[in-house]
């Protein structure tokens, strides 16, 4: 990887774009700006960015429309930036192909962390065989899980669930996504399965299962597996 990653920022608010540019360039990333949905789509096609930051409150198209059109031609990770806090909107966007979701106001350091996660997925996900984070180590080829130095025996469902988390590590995964990945499309309403197995995983993996730090609950939306730094 010789060229620095390119981040496309689609937002109509100039000061926000400027501040984001300053922070991102400080991380040695290349920044492309677009001030509305159409120019954002053009930029996404022309510049082939590695991560797209998409504000959903755009003047011409809705963020949701932009997301759907982006997904027609690219799998580039999209991080949604939104002022809307309701869970319904979050779930809808995440289930429609958004990789992550950030609420305004946000801190730039949090934003950078999310971008890093996204970048890792877009560049290295396919080649990763060992996942490590916060005392957790998973050898994907050997199906070996170690937590805080102890080897952990997981049932096959628990392991499937953990794999689903690992696949989207660092990102918010909705209940629906998890249920579909692990139990299949017929079980997307069986939320209690998920609850039970998340609790079981936590008991086996977390240092303190009552205050989980690995598998974090995103209330009303889903879960997130803390990613390594």
């Amino acid at each position, binding site marked *: 990887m010789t060229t620095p990653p390119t981040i496309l920022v689609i937002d109509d608010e100039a000061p926000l774009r400027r501040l984001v540019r300053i922070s991102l360039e400080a991380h040695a990333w290349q920044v492309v700006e677009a001030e509305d949905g159409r120019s954002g789509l053009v930029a996404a096609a022309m510049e082939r960015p590695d991560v797209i930051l998409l504000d959903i409150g755009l003047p011409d198209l809705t963020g949701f429309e932009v997301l759907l059109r982006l997904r027609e031609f690219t799998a580039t990770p999209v991080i949604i930036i939104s002022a809307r806090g309701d869970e319904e909107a979050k779930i809808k966007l995440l289930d429609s192909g958004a990789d992550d979701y950030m609420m305004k106001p946000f801190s730039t350091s949090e934003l950078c962390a999310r971008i890093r996660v996204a970048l890792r997925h877009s560049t290295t996900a396919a080649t990763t065989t060992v996942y490590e984070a916060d005392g957790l180590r998973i050898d994907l080829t050997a199906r070996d899980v170690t937590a805080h130095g102890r080897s952990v025996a997981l049932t096959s469902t628990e392991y499937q669930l953990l794999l689903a988390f690992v696949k989207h590590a660092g990102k918010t995964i909705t209940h629906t996504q998890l249920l579909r990945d692990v139990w299949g499309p017929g079980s997307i309403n069986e939320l209690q399965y998920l609850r039970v197995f998340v609790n079981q995983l936590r008991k086996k993996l977390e240092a303190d299962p009552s*205050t989980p730090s690995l598998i974090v*609950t995103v209330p009303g939306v889903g879960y997130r597996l803390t990613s390594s730094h």
Partner: protein
Amino acid sequence: MTPDRPDPDQLLRSIQEAAKSGSRGTLKIFFGMCAGVGKTYTMLEAAHDAQRQGIDVVVGLVETHGRQETERLLDGLPVVPRKVVEHRGTVLTEFDIDAVLSRAPQLVLVDELAHTNAPGSRHGKRFLDVLELLDRGISVYTTLNVQHLESRADAVAQITGFPIQETVPDSVFDAATEIELIDLPADSLLKRLHEGKVYTAAAAQRAINNFFRKGNLTALREMALRLTAEHVDVQLRSYMSSEHIAGPWRSNERILVAIGPAPSSAQLIRWARRMAAMSNTEWMVAYVDTGAGHIQVDEDRIREHLDLARELGAEVQTTASASIVQGILDIAQRENVTQIIVGKPKRRTWSLWRRTLVDVLIDRSGPIDVHTVRLDGPPTRRTMQTDPVQENARGYLSAVGVVLAIVAIGLVSVQFIGYQSIGLILMGAMVVLGMFHDRGPLLLAAIISAFLWNFLFIPPRFTLFITRPEDAMMIVLYLTVALVTGTLTMRLRQRERSMRTRETRTALLFSVAKSLSERSTMDVIVRTSVRELASMLQCEVAMYLRSPKGILEEPHPSSTFTPTAKDRSVAMWSFINNRMAGKFTDTLSSSATMSLPITGVNATHGVICFQFNDVRMSAEQQSLIESAVRLIALALDREVLVAQAATSEVARRSDELRTIILNSVSHELRTPLAVLNAAISTLRDESIHLTAEQQKKIMHDAGASTERLSRVVDHLLNMTRLESGNVRPLRQWCDVADLINSAIHIAAGGEVIVHKHIPASLPFLQADEGLLEQALVNVLENAVRYSPPDVPVNVTVADLPEGMSIIVRDSGPGVSPDDLEHLFEKFYRASTAKEGGTGLGLAIAKGFIEALNGTIEARLPQDGGLEIRIFLPLPRSTQPFTE
């Protein structure tokens, strides 16, 4: 008339005397409907009378139109010569005012007040001459036709088709001290015309064909009569007020017209209306249902009369009473009536010895005036029918049957008990029958038994001869007893029936009133009304309410039938015109339903639509319906008023709230903004040299302010979401323990220790995770804020049979008991509140928990702090799911 009311003649005399002593002359107008009624003639007669009384009378000007009778009357009266005026070659004679003024009589006759003077005269109009004379202290007799009165000229022109050129202002007419109406029925006038007493034969024929048509004359006559009546009335009242007599015109006159089924009652109603309009008083029409059955024609007429009365603006009162007089007087007393108007009864010869209803009414009316009005129209038969035909036939049959049975028994036993005993038995039977039957059957029974007793028993038997006077007396006695007992029974029955009617009516209305009195919402009132009306009247009822926009809504769901489009248009009409319409009324009567407006104090609340199976409706029934609808209107009025009061209360409170919001929000938004602003301007200021430490501190403050600002915005958004009713909880399985963990993480952020007491095997709860988490965060944030840093906040979760309970308890200062009940109110800040809260956190928590069908309450534990108890009676997973 009450004794304190002065006699009008007396009054006029006093006016005349007063005028005589004053400097101004009096004006007397001889007023007629048209030429030829005899105004001039009457005026001249009056002048002779005055002359005989020693008054100095002169004739200023009198037009006799060549009528000989009139001309003869001029004899003996001094005449002031007319002035001769030449105008364009024509010689005219005019009233010579100067001559009269110099002659200075006490009274001058000036004919034709409306006359236009010849050009060049002093005044253009003769009435101006007259006014001058009056000013000079000379009294004037003059004549005037109604068509010359300014205000009536148009109307007359319209009626007759002749434009009126010469008019006299009404003020002159009003100023007249006396108006004498020369009234002549149209027919008499036409007769006079034909006889040539008014015009010459040729002119008369022309006049008859044009102006003097009977219809014209009648209309003019009515106009003249009315004007005169009004004039007297105005005079009387102005005199009374000028002399401060507090006499006859009581301040609140109320006229009551008693009506019955006679066709002439309509006339009576119209008469009363005129009287009421003239004296500007309230009036009502009363009908007393004696309980005696009426034949259908009468029932219908009564209804027509009551409708007419309503149409003419009368208040309609009906009552049930066996005695008409008592019924009228009851209403009169209840309604503070001062005058009662009744039709003058046409005496029948047989009733000469009998006191009429009017006589009784006058006797018993006490301080109330009773007016009788003579009514035209065919005399009405007393239309009292005892009973419906069927029952009557049964009555006749059974009466005759009893008589025949006794006679049959008598035939067998006559040789043992004697024929006179049989007479007595028959007499006894008559009395017994009297207890059950009315006059008719009894009379028949009496006649038959008299005949049979005579024919079969009185010797010589099988003849109608009576030899002994006792037997003859017996027969007379039969008839008397039958009549007397029959009449008594009938009266008793009537009374009983009217009592019963009144009783049922009172009972029905009472039940409606009772069920309406306690109700609290519009909807309940409507439902109750529909139910009560339907059961009370045995009919189908639909009720329309007025929408807030003032139009009629769709029929209320509780309606017992679905009105058709036609019914709806009837209801609409009734609503718009605020009058009843549809079946049994004059408007849209072909409709299948009857609509009554619910007339409230300020507005028509709606319309009630009735669907009757009956072919006709009795006055009694109608009055019952009206009373019930009035009750409903009252109930709705009450609700409207209560609602209005509540609205204004809400408005007041929302006003208060707006002020609080503005204060609170502006403080909460501005404070962090001020910090941010200060931080940024400090950093931007190049003249200030900050150490790295200082910079870090400023940045930290700015960050904290941002968080605070963001929380305020979150709270406001959540509150708005709640207020707009936009909270739709999802139902999904939630892990409450997990939620509490994440809420603690957000709320406490590791600054305050939170102790959790959560059962190991807590079932999942079916709730909205997002809402529950936000509520928990808010409650926890509150607890953390008030807890001292070293004392833990306790969170206890319990799975109870009815639901899940979450208790958050802090060790802070708590609140005062007064604050406790307001803790969950928007923008409420307890007296112990710390700086920096929005006053929304707990309100939002309450809103969200209630959206989840849960409850939240605050308590003050014995050992200090504050305890928030959340209870969620929601489904829980029965057993944990395992692989």
